[in-house]
């Protein structure tokens, strides 16, 4: 747990940065914020020690490092957002504590897969009907002054459902696609993805599909299911490309953003220029110019990091996510029973592929789909749910040692 020193050092460095360069924010003392976060992260450590939780030792420090870096860059972009994000971080930490304390026997999740499915689909349906459109995607629910993105929690529900269902019906599924057990599985996933596409939340739809295919592969061990899924996805995407003009526009922007550099291609063109301006060593914290990019604090925060920490910094971020994936899959390797393997594999794929899709999207390696960078981007729903997932991963990893 000495690894928690790294996020602590990052936070302390950030504190001094704010002290020296920051414009002060009314009602908030940077020192209190620092104390709060430090005690938060070390507090989890303490709680885990006290309850004798034997979960994985690396996942939490990696997540804390990402969040700490994210907070510093958020502060640099917009102190208001950073302070709000601190509250979300504390909330995330609390959720993590609750999950690790009360859900240590994660098998309890497996008892009602259909409950989670119903809850997930219901919240998506509500969003489709009554959702608010923010930044292209109609994926927000507004309750008074409170806004949340149900999709974040839906992804968790779907993984829990899939792990339960796949675990239960494994033997039958392996026997072939003709079996009736495939029906509910395909139907549930298709409905969820379609509801996401209707919200124009293509990024989440893609992540859900990738996670589904990864879990299906883990459960059945048959790569041709994945290949078939990939082909179906490709066909679906092709049809969608023809049917939905907004999707076509997205793909065209991806293929050549420079054609309309002042209009639809602006975001990605400026993103590439920003990354290029960072070069290898970066401009240094606060010296970049990425504020001109729309959604820089949420979807595009990786670009700010790339500019101000340079290629070395952006590769560092990528490597942290890769290590997170390796660690998560390593836990899955060691878990003795299959439900735990599916749960860990699914959550690890969910987090790392979401990170991959947005990092590849803002750099034009893949078409851009607006999703958050887990543990880093500004956004309460995303951050809290990321810590919830982390808690579940810790719980499964504990069963390895018990």
């Amino acid at each position, binding site marked *: 747990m000495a690894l928690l020193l790294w996020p602590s050092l990052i936070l302390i460095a950030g504190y001094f940065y704010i002290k020296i360069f920051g414009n002060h924010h009314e009602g908030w003392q940077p020192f209190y914020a620092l104390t709060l976060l430090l005690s938060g992260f070390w507090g989890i450590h303490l709680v885990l020690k006290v309850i004798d939780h034997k979960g994985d030792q690396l996942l939490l420090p990696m997540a804390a490092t990402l969040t700490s870096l994210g907070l510093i860059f958020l502060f640099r972009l917009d102190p208001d957002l950073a302070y709000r994000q601190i509250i979300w971080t504390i909330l995330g930490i609390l959720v993590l504590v609750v999950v690790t304390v009360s859900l240590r026997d994660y098998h309890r999740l497996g008892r009602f897969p259909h409950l989670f499915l119903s809850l997930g689909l219901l919240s998506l349906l509500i969003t489709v009907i009554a959702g608010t459109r923010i930044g292209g995607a109609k994926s927000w629910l507004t309750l008074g002054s409170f806004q949340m993105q149900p999709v974040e929690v839906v992804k968790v529900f779907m993984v829990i459902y899939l792990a339960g269902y796949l675990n239960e019906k494994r033997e039958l599924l392996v026997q072939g696609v003709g079996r009736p057990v495939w029906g509910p599985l395909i139907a549930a996933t298709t409905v969820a993805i379609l509801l996401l596409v209707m919200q124009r939340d293509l990024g989440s739809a893609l992540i859900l599909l990738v996670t589904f295919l990864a879990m299906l592969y883990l459960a059945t061990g048959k790569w041709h299911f994945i290949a078939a899924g990939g082909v179906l996805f490709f066909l679906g995407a092709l049809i969608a490309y023809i049917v939905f003009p907004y999707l076509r526009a997205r793909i065209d922007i991806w293929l050549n953003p420079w054609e309309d550099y002042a209009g639809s291609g602006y975001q990605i063109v400026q993103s590439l220029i920003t990354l290029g301006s960072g070069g290898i060593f970066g401009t240094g914290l606060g010296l970049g110019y990425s504020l001109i990019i729309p959604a820089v604090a949420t979807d595009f925060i990786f670009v700010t990091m790339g500019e101000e920490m340079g290629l070395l910094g952006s*590769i560092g971020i990528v490597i942290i996510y890769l290590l997170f*994936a390796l660690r998560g899959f390593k836990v899955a390797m060691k878990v003795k029973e299959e439900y735990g393997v599916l749960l860990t594999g699914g959550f690890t794929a969910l987090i790392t592929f979401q990170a991959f899709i947005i990092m590849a999207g803002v750099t034009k390696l893949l078409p851009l789909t607006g999703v958050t960078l887990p543990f880093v981007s500004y956004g309460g729903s995303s951050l809290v749910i990321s810590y919830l997932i982390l808690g579940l991963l810790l719980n499964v990893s504990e069963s390895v040692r018990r």
Partner: protein
Amino acid sequence: MKKEIRRLTFVTIIFFSILIIYLTYIQGIIGNKLYLNSLNPRLALVEQETKRGIIYDRNGKVLADNVLVGDRFERQYPYGPSTALVVGYLSDRFGSSGLEANYKEELLGLTGWQRVRNTLRRLTEKPVQGNNLALTIDADLQRLSTNLLGERRGAVVALDPRTGEVLALASSPNFDPNKLEQEWSWINSPKAGSPLLNRATQGLYPAGSIMKIITATMALEEDLNISDYEFYCSGFIEINGRRLTCPRPHGEVNFNEAMMYSCNVTFANLALKFGVDKFKETAEHYGFGKKIEFDLPLKKSQATTNKMNANALAESAIGQGPVLVTPLQMAMVVGSLAMDGVMMQPYLVKNITNPEGKLIWKARPRPYQIVTRKDVAQKIKEAMIATVNEGTATAAALPNIKVAAKTGSAQNPHGKAHAWLIAFAPAEDPEIAVAVIVENGGSGGVAAAPIARQVMAAALRR
């Protein structure tokens, strides 16, 4: 399930490795290019906080400088319209062009470690100054060339064939970079005739008879004795039922006479005799169809297309049909003949000095290509001297100096023929090579030759 997890891990590693490699490409390899992209708003900030480098001509005359207007620096161009298409312009509203755009990395002091040093200076609020450029252009010759074109559309290129230094690169119409904001709407009106277009490097014209230089090279390389043969011109030849004509039947002509009177029939016959492959090869040696590096964007000249039948070959041989060339390309062609077959790499920037005056980069003349053998070049040179003495290019002659030249009148769909002249002087020991085009000027010997003569005279008087 262990096997499946291992494979999933493997796939994840591959995906993330691709991302890392791609990021290295974006930030490490093309990062600087992206940074210098004109769409980068960071450059406008750098621009505000940096005193741009000064641009000088070859003799130290100032072509672009910063003048304090109120509390900020403004760019001024003492030679105005005459250097506008080489030096370019700089404007808050309309960006930049020419060398101002292509060399902004140097002019703003953003190269390599200098960028780091200047960023630190900016942070500590010390003044930052870019590097100065010294060009190969002779400001007076440049101005003379521009004035000689006057109201007519066209271009003049003057090179030192020994080094490849561009002494003048004039294009008309042009604009006054000091009054860009006021003139912008006029500049972009259709009537203005595209004054932002540098016709010397971006204009693609049919070459007309000056292309016969390439045809002659091809023929002499195959058979040097051709210079002693007699040809017969009946005024036309018929190829696949289509006629290619001369203005009048030249009758019996030898090689020099065919060049002097620019006999289409003879050169079309020579091209047909030695074939399309040889023609293509010769044109490639002269740089046609190749991307040639230059300090300003340079269009690719072409001599042939992919499908070449006998008619197209005969037309290419006299500079019509698929032939499209830039004036700079033709100046390089004539310059290589002046140098007995060695084509020099053309360049515009002679050296770069830092704000303290220390030399940080210096251009080195280097050959671009050996285009042909010395004996072939000599034969063509003799024919070009004869063309000035008693052929179509008498108007390019200089007193007491031997000049070699070739005229062209390029047919085009927009009216009167484009008048061409390419020349070099002194013929025995060349110091200057020129290419002149006057759009729709008619006969090359009438419209283009006097301009070339005056440019060469002025250059040799220096």
